[in-house]
């Protein structure tokens, strides 16, 4: 191994160790008697010191050395960790980190040797021996009870500098308040049984090696990516073999190809897992961040982490690190109040910051909640008005939730004074942009006086994303599903009627609003004939997309299907083309380009104006919609009754053949996008009791046509609502209301001049659950209801 490699290994290892030190020290501050943790901290510093002595980084060695001395005192129980010592030790960690960076870039450990830091550390260390002889003596005697090995590091050190100790001890006597703490520590040491010393020694003999290193191997990320690529290719080859095997009708070959199939799937899953990292890897630094920020603004904060083991793709972990750090700092700085204010409000002096991560519906949710004062609606509203981000009229119409989300606007900050952490008007909008860049979303909820929760939703992986595949000019293109709003198909005379021109710019009226249209073939210049989209089969396919809060319709030749695609970045030579986000290999082995919706929108001049304007617009739209119109999905339910649900609750419309409906207990279910989707029949929940029971027991009639299903997401649950027929989507004020005439209906309204029942989804869910529970034995109820 060359010197360079040794230094490189030393750097990698030390960085990791330093990150652990940050965590351990903050943990120790809370629990200063954790001898095991202390021993760990000591070992880490000891290893760094030893290695840099060997490599000739003398300045670094010096700093580590004084730190080690101080830690020796702590480990041996002569000192007890207090905030002052923690701060000094953390300062040392920072200094070491700084010097490591210097070594990384220049190969030398820099010019600075941190004399002040070393003085502080030395002073703190000697405070253990400081207070006069009388008190120091029992301490030494007490120590004698502990086996010698654990003290050996400290003993020669203490002996070699008697003069210095004398000098400092006089200084120490003035700092009277540090003394009681030392006295307690002496008592502690005296009372500690001898075996504890034994355990420390055993750990010591293992040196700086951590146990984890035995079961893990460091692997180059490049190598992992290559393996991933090859597995992707293997999947394609496997698919071809399977097709071939189907034609061959050779039993032996079929068996082998089935085996290949299984192994490939397992291999693919395994390789995917190698890229996954627990979110705890980036959370590890937060206790330190929280401590520093809290100390800086005089607050007391406890950090609680749940779901540390939640795994995410490596690239995503890296992408969310900064946004999350910002959110955490923000919560401590803005969210949690000063201790006095907290006491006044009847809360514990110490604030609570909860980080929670969990999987939900193929996404990872990360919540950052504080129990602080919450967001002040009036202040936010006034600030937004003052800054000209919203108009007075908008302000009046906005809901509380909309106002909370104003904090993500650029140039918005309500911090009364600018601290070094936040309040500079940058930050939250950057958080939002960064999270959205990787296909995620941010939302904020707050209750006055009780706290604020920021919820970040991000995809599990960027390597594989769901996408809509379309054809244009004979080639396929993939559109990431996150940008996709809906699909519109115009046929027959609707083509000429539906698409209108605004001084030459084509638009389509989508539920009464003008949607600018962009022709993909024109933008890409793939076909000279501008009307080729019309020429294919007379119909026009519009993909409604969202780019930077603006909607537009993309006209394509053909819409193929949604598919999970493996994203491969474009080479440097093609990266300058903003219209493409990457490329992917399709099932048949051909390459398809992935459209960058934002880049495409910019190219087509859909997004031209400044971001602030679009955001303000959106807020206005949302507020206006909330105040005036609702969009409803109309359908017919049992007995030809006309019913509606708000469109916002709808995820998708689907049609399933009856053969796909299975029974789970007496619950209808179907397999949908890799999940089991419970199907709720309105007949079951709404008909009177006898009909209901009859309907409940009945399996789907095999000869019936396909069933129409509304896929709904409600309070985190996905389920399908089986309806007779889907009628229309309408915008209506729904002003005329009357009370409901039967259960599961919110009220009757007049929509499109006809009386329509507006369904109560919460009630339907509850009633479906209870119906299933009643009809089957209790033990199976829970399973079936899910």
């Amino acid at each position, binding site marked *: 191994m060359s010197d360079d490699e040794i230094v490189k290994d030393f750097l990698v290892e030390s960085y990791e160790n330093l990150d652990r030190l940050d965590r351990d020290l903050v943990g120790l501050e809370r629990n200063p008697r954790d001898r095991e943790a202390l021993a760990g901290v000591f070992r880490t510093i000891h290893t760094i010191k030893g290695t840099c002595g060997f490599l000739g980084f003398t300045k670094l060695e010096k700093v580590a050395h004084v730190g080690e001395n101080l830690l020796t005192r702590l480990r041996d129980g002569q000192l007890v960790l207090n905030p002052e010592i923690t701060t000094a030790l953390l300062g040392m960690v920072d200094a070491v980190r700084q010097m490591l960076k210097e070594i990384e870039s220049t190969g030398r450990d820099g010019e600075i040797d941190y004399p002040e830091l070393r003085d502080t550390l030395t002073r703190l260390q000697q405070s253990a021996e400081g207070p006069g002889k009388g008190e120091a003596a029992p301490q030494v005697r007490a120590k004698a009870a502990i086996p010698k090995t654990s003290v050996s590091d400290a003993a020669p050190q203490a002996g070699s500098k008697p003069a210095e100790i004398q000098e400092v001890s006089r200084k120490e006597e003035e700092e009277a308040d540090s003394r009681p703490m030392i006295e307690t520590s002496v008592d502690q040491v005296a009372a500690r049984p001898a075996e504890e010393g034994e355990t420390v020694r055993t750990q010591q003999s293992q040196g700086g090696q951590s146990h984890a290193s035995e079961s893990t191997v460091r692997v180059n990320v490049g190598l992992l990516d290559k393996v991933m690529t090859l597995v992707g290719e293997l999947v394609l080859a496997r698919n071809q073999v399977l097709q071939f095997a189907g034609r061959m009708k050779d039993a032996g070959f079929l068996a082998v190809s089935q085996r290949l199939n299984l192994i490939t799937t397992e291999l693919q899953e395994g390789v995917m897992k190698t890229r996954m990292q627990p979110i705890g890897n980036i959370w590890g630094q937060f206790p330190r961040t929280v401590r520093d920020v809290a100390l800086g603004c005089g607050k007391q904060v406890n950090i609680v982490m749940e779901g540390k083991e939640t795994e995410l793709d490596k690239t995503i972990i890296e992408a969310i690190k900064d946004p999350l750090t910002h959110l955490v700092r923000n919560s401590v700085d803005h969210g949690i109040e000063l201790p006095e204010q907290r006491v006044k409000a009847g809360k514990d002096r110490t604030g609570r910051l909860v980080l929670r991560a969990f999987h939900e519906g193929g996404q990872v949710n990360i919540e950052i909640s504080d129990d602080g004062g919450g967001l002040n609606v009036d202040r936010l509203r006034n600030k937004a008005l003052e800054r000209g981000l919203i108009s007075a009229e908008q302000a009046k119409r906005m809901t509380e939730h909309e106002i909370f989300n104003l904090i993500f606007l650029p140039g918005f900050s309500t911090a009364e004074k600018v601290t070094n952490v936040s309040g500079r008007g940058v930050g939250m909008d950057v958080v939002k942009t960064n999270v959205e860049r990787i296909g995620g979303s941010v939302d904020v909820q707050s209750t006055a006086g009780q706290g604020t929760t920021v919820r970040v939703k991000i995809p599990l992986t960027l390597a594989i994303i769901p996408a809509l595949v379309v054809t244009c000019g004979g080639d396929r293109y993939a559109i990431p599903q996150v940008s996709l709003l809906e699909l519109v198909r115009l046929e027959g005379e609707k083509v000429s009627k539906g698409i209108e021109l605004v001084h030459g710019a084509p638009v389509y009226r989508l539920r009464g609003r003008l949607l600018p249209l962009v022709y993909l073939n024109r933008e890409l210049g793939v076909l000279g004939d501008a009307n080729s989209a019309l020429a294919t089969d007379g119909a026009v396919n519009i993909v409604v997309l969202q780019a930077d809060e603006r909607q537009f319709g993309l006209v394509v030749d053909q819409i193929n299907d949604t598919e999970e695609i493996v994203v491969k970045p474009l080479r440097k030579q093609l990266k*300058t083309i903003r219209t493409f986000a990457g*490329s992917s290999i399709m099932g048949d082995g051909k390459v398809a380009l992935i459209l960058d919706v934002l880049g495409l929108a910019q190219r087509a001049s859909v997004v031209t104006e400044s971001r602030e304007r679009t955001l303000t617009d959106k807020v206005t739209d949302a507020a206006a919609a909330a105040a005036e119109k609702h969009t409803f999905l109309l359908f017919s339910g049992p007995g030809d009754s006309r019913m509606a649900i708000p469109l916002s609750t709808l995820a998708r419309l689907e049609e399933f053949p009856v053969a796909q409906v299975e029974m789970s207990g007496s619950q209808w279910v179907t397999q949908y996008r890799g999940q089991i989707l419970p199907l709720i029949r309105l007949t079951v929940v709404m008909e009177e009791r006898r009909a209901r029971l009859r309907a409940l027991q009945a399996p789907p009639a095999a000869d019936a046509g396909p069933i129409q299903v509304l896929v709904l997401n409600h309070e985190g649950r996905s389920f399908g609502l089986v309806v007779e027929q889907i009628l229309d989507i309408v915008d209506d004020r729904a002003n005329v209301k009357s009370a409901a005439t039967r259960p599961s209906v919110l009220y009757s309204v007049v929509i499109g001049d006809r009386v329509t029942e507006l369904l109560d989804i919460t009630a339907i869910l509850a009633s479906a659950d209870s119906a299933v529970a009643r009809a089957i034995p209790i033990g199976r109820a829970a399973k079936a209801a899910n």
Partner: protein
Amino acid sequence: MEHTSQFCTFYLDKLLFGVELKGVQEVIRSLEMTKVPLAPEVVSGLINLRGQIVTAVDLRRRLELEPAPPGVRAVNVVVRSEDGAVSLLVDEIGDVVEVEESSFETPPETLRGSVRSMILGVHKLDDRLMHVLDIEKACRMTEMAEAASVG
């Protein structure tokens, strides 16, 4: 013994070209190609090389030669560049030749224009001249974009 090096040779518009063998990853007959709209003209498209997506460069266009006559099925010479593998599309693949360094000569002053930077020189073979292609320069797309906008 004199120092020799091996070249992978190919033809473009009846001219003989060579790239150093150690820079060549593989040679593949025509693969299905996906067009890249909006890309510089010299980019023929993307090919799937066992799961790796590789940019294919129309070397005729890159070297400002006449476009290939219809019906010629290009061969992919996949070379390793700083930015990963790139496929150079050539008319026909030739032999691997071993040449002595003494047969090398830099291009004449009369060879001008952007092509000059991509041709390191020629090796004087017994019956003809072999143009030595600079792989890095030929694969560098920023120049390509410029070349495309100029041409």
